[in-house]
C-alpha cells in the first residue's frame, strides 16, 4: 500500500511537471507572425547594411526603433530582387502606403526608461549583446506574446537570445562595475 501511494504521488508530480514545462507555455503564449518576412541576413550581406542604417538615432539622440515605411520605401519603391517576400512587401505595404505593424520583441514596460544612445555610444555595447543574433537571422522568429502580461516571451531570454529583464540589466551593470539605482531606469 505504501508503494502504491508513492507511485500515485510520483505520478502527480510527473503529470504536473509535464503540464508545467510542456503544456503551460503553449497555453500562456499566443504566437503571431510578423507582417513581413524580413531577412536581416540578406540586408547585411547583400546590401551591406549596418544596424544603424535602419535602426537610427534621431538628431536629438533618441532612438528611432523599428524603421518606418518611408525608410524601407527609399530602396524598395520597386523590387530590387526576385524574392516572393519582397514582392509581397511591396504589394501589401509600399504600394498602398500602409505602415507594417511590426511586433517588437524587446518592448519594455511603460515604466522603464532605456537610453539606447547611452549604451551604444558611451557604453560601447554591441547590438547583439542585448538583441542576440537577431541582426544576422535569415527569418524573423514568431512573436510569442504572453496572454496575461502582454509582453514578448523574448524579454525573458528565449531560444538562445539573452534576457532583457531588470535582473539582466542589473547583472550587466554589476559585472561592468557600473553604478545603478532604481531611478536610472524608473524615472
Amino acid at each position, binding site marked *: 500500500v505504501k508503494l*502504491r*501511494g508513492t507511485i*500515485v*504521488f*510520483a*505520478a*502527480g*508530480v*510527473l*503529470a*504536473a*511537471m509535464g*503540464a*508545467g*514545462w510542456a503544456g*503551460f*507555455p503553449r497555453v*500562456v503564449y499566443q504566437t503571431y507572425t510578423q507582417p513581413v518576412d524580413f531577412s536581416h541576413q540578406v540586408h547585411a550581406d547583400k546590401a551591406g547594411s549596418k544596424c544603424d542604417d535602419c535602426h537610427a538615432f*534621431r538628431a*536629438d539622440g*533618441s532612438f*528611432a526603433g523599428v524603421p518606418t515605411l518611408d525608410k524601407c520605401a527609399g530602396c524598395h519603391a520597386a523590387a530590387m530582387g526576385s524574392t516572393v517576400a519582397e514582392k509581397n512587401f511591396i504589394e501589401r505595404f509600399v504600394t498602398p502606403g500602409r505602415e507594417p505593424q511590426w511586433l517588437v520583441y524587446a518592448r519594455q*514596460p*511603460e*515604466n522603464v526608461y532605456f537610453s539606447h544612445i547611452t549604451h551604444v555610444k558611451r557604453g560601447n555595447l554591441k547590438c547583439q549583446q542585448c538583441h542576440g543574433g537577431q541582426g544576422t537571422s535569415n527569418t524573423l522568429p514568431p512573436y510569442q506574446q*504572453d496572454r*496575461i*502580461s*502582454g*509582453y514578448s516571451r523574448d524579454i525573458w531570454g528565449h531560444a538562445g537570445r539573452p534576457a532583457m529583464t531588470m535582473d539582466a540589466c542589473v547583472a550587466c551593470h554589476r559585472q561592468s562595475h557600473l553604478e545603478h539605482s532604481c531611478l536610472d531606469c524608473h524615472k
Partner: protein
Amino acid sequence: MSLSQMTNSRRDIFKFAGGAVAGALFTPAPWRLITDTALWSENWPGIPRPARGEIRFKFTNCALCPAGCAVRARCVGEQPVSLAGVRGGLCPFGLSAHHLPYHPARLKQGPILEATAAVFQGAGKRAPNGIAVLDLNPGRTVSWTYRRAMASLKGLYLAPESQPLAYDLSAAKTVLSIGAPLLDGWGTPANVLAARPNFRLIQAEAVESRTAMLADQWIQLAPGTESAFAQSIPSLPYAKDLSLVLGDAPEIPEINRQLGAYGKTVFARPEAPVPEAWSKNAAAVTELAGVPDHSISVLLIDESSAVSYIPWHRIQRKLVRENPLVVTFATTRGGYARYAQYALPTAVYPEVLDDIAPAVDCIHPTFRIAVPLVPPPAGVVNPADFVSALAGLPASNSLRERADAVHHTTQGTVLTYADNKETPLKDLTADAFWKSLNDGTRWDRPPGLSIPSTVSACQPAAGRPSSPEPPESPADLPLIAIREPYTPALVSPLMTKLYQESGLRLAPNRVALNPRDARAANLSNGARATLQTRIGKCSVEVTVDPAVPPGAVQVGCSPGIQDVCGPSSRAKVVSA
C-alpha cells in the same frame, strides 16, 4: 494484490493532487503566473502611460497672463511634455500649464444649446443697452470682436479698466511700490528682472512679501494704512527721487502726475494696430463701476482667460432686479459659474488660438499669439464665435485680419523664438508673417517708431457713479485683509507643492493669521474656519504664520474669498 484489486480510492486522489502541487513548484508555471499578474496590473486601465514618439520643439506664447512669455514646448509626437521659457524663464504657473487640459476641476460640458436659445431670445426682447459683455482679459483681438458685436447690438463692452496704463521700468531710477507684487507676477518676468538692476525699489506694505524681500528697502505699513501712506508721499524726504509709484491706492495716479511720471515712466497701454473698420464700429470700453445700477438684463462674462476678478456683488448690483440672464464662458465652476444661469466650457491654454493682451510693463505695441499645442475637447465653446453669431457679424478669421493690419504698417521687427533672429517686418509677406506668428514669433514696434500716448491720454478716471456701501465696524470686524497676488483660475495640481510644502504661496482657499489673533479666535494651524466681512462669509482653512502682523488677515485669492473680501477690507475669522 492483483490488478483487479487496485481500485482508486479517495486517498489516491489526494496523493495525486499533492504530488501535482509539489511537481508544479518545479515548473515555471506558478512563478510565471506571479510575474505575469504583476505585469498585467501595471497596465490596468487608467494607469497613465508616457507618450512615445519623436521629440520635437514647438514655440508659442503663454496665454495665462498678459506677460505672454515666449514658450518652448518639448513634445513627444504631438504631446507637449514640458514647457520652458525662451529669452527668460517662465513662472511656476506657466511651467506647468501643459497639465491644464487634464485638470480634474476643468469644465468640459455645458448646456450650450439651451444657453444659445436663451441668449438669442433674451437679446431680442431686452431694451437697448440691456445686453453687455464683461471681458476679464481685455486688449485681445477677441475683445475687439466683443466691442464690434456690442456696437451692433447697442450693448455695452465692460472691462476692469477703461484706460489701462503701461509702466516703463527701464526708464525708472527709483520705484515706490505700495503693495504691488512687482517681482512676483506683476509684469513680464524677463523684462522686470532685466530692468531690476537699474532702479532702486522701495516696497511699502504690511507683510514682508516676496517682492518686499527682494526690494532695496521694505517699509512696513500698518495694515489698512496704504492710502494714508500714499497721501504722505509728497512730504517724504525721498519724494523728489521717485520716478514712479505703483499700487492700487486711489491716490497713486495723482501722485504720479505730481512726480511728472506721465510720459516718462507711465503711458497709456498701447495695443497693436487693428483694421480700420473695427475701430470705426466698436463699442467704447466701459468700466463696470460706470454702469448705472440695475440696468443690464443679459450679461455675457468671458472669464476663460481671466487675469482679474471682480467681486460678484459689484456685478450683481448692475443686473436688473427681475430675471437677469447671466452666461459665463469659463474653464472651471469655481468663478462666476456659481452665480450664472449657464456656464459654457471653453478651451484652456495650451488649447487656445488667441493673441496676448498688452503687458503692463510694455510701453510699445506688440503682437503675439498662443497657438494650440493640443486640440481642445469636443463640446467646448469659442466665446468669440458665440458673441459674433449673436450680433450677426460675418464669420471671419479675426486674428489673421489683425495680423494683416499689423503687417500693413510695415514697421517694427519680428523676433523668431527658435533661432532668436530679428527680421524687419517689411521683409516679410503677409502670409509669411502669419506663418511666422503661428510658428512662435512676436512682433514689436521698436521705440524709435512708436509714439506712446502721453499724459493727456491717461488721465485718471473722473468720479464714477457708485452705490454707497455700508460702513465697516472695527468692533465687529477686527482684522484688516491683505490679499495675495492674483492666481489663475486653473493651476496645475502639482502647484500644491508650492502651497502646502514650500509655503511660497498661500493656497487660494486659505487665510493666514498672526498666532496672537489665531489664539484669540481659538483657531489652530490647519483648522477650518469662516471668513466674515460686511459683504458675506465663506469657508476657509487657517494657516498660523508669525510673519502676518497682528490685526491683519492675509487672504488667498480664490473667487469665494474675493467675492466677500477685497484688499484692506475689515474681516473676522471664526471657527467653523
